């Protein structure tokens, strides 16, 4: 039986921690799109959770909390709902909000220009080596999807590592040349959704490079050029990442 078939074994070793680096990254990425694998991992986490009580306690440095607070300011937050934990009032508020959001989406669909038949596109962003080409790495740093109908980019972290006091900035650049166009700050921790730049025709999406540069934690102005590009990829039709 290969690891592809043995979901239980793979999930168990992921939780136990015995997978090597490539395997662990692959499983971490797969669980986002494979409910069976994600469910198996959660089940193993529940089975083994009592063991976590046996880790001895240890005191971190006293200056750690201010450093944590400093990081919070630049991070967007995830708002999630879990049915089991919500009061009836929150359920009602959530329901009304969902209905309102649905109406807005419907109105937006009616009013928005059509995508002229442009397919949804996907990209995997890999590390740039010195020659300007991407490295031959198995796992992409970021996975990007373009929804042509809603004109939004969805950016999911892959193998990318967070860098202390730095952020990642997504830009577009025409393959034919020209200045990069800023899209927005993206996260190495969580999925982000950013609008496709209004000044760039969707028809050009397949002719654009997606560039990720590393920037100071306090990003510069919208007109300042991006910093050093470290990840790169190209949107193309095909299987979603």
């Amino acid at each position, binding site marked *: 039986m290969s690891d592809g078939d*043995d979901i*239980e*074994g793979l999930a*168990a*070793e992921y939780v*136990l*921690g*015995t*997978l*090597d*680096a490539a395997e*662990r*990254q692959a499983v*971490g990425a797969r669980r986002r799109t494979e409910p069976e694998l994600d*469910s*198996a991992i*959660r*089940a*193993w*986490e*529940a*089975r*083994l*959770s*009592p*063991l*976590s*009580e*046996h*880790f*001895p*306690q*240890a*005191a*971190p*440095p006293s200056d*750690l*909390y201010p*450093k*944590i*607070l400093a*990081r*919070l300011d630049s*991070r*967007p*937050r*995830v*708002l*999630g*709902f*879990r049915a*089991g*934990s919500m009061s009836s009032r929150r359920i009602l508020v959530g329901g009304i909000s969902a209905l309102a959001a649905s109406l807005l989406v419907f109105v937006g669909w009616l009013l928005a220009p059509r995508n002229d038949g442009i397919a949804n596109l996907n990209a995997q962003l890999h590390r740039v080596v010195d020659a300007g080409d991407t490295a031959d790495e198995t796992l992409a740093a970021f996975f990007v999807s373009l929804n042509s109908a809603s004109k939004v980019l969805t950016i999911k972290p892959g193998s990318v*590592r*967070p860098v*202390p006091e730095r952020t990642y900035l997504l830009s577009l650049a025409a393959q034919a040349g020209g200045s990069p166009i800023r899209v927005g700050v993206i996260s190495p*921790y*969580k999925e982000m959704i950013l609008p496709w730049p209004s000044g760039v025709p969707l028809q050009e999406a397949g002719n654009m490079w997606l560039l990720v540069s590393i920037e100071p934690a306090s990003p510069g102005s919208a007109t300042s050029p991006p910093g050093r590009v470290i990840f790169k990829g190209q949107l193309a039709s095909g299987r979603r990442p």
Partner: protein
Amino acid sequence: MSVANTKLEAALERVAKGDTAAFRCVYDATHMKLYGIVSRILDRRELADEVLQEVYVTIWQRAGEFDREIASPITWMATIARNRALDEARRRPMRSIEELPELLELPGDDNPYATAEHNERAQQVHACLDKLGPDRKQIFLLAYFHGLTRDEIAVRIGRPTATVKTWLRRALAQLKDCLGDERR
């Protein structure tokens, strides 16, 4: 539900709404436990410091996702900490046999968040681990508490990696049968 868990749940709910005072309460209540997890797996202090910061940023970002039906708040946060530590541990080069830890006994359990249900589950886990036999139990505990990979376990016990993988898969299957299905 213990009083400590109830307070932590309430604090997490406020954190989800952006309450930094509640976040401080969560930090004060949990940092010793979470740093204990991270520092045990990573065994390099500066790395553990960095990872712990990332853990609390994740807790801040994802507090709204906490579901009391699935896990206690401390278990939820411990899972985040352990996963993040393992992610970071996989970036380091494989350790030599002199650097690999030895684990003779399961560390003690001092849990202010323990409930009667929790203690029963803990006893069940211990009993099932004992059924693995002493050698397989040691391998399992080295992996869980020190983040050893299959290759490092193989070096520690002097066996091929493929053998270690087979042993691990069998031990985990045996553990699952003993503990029962946790799927929801």
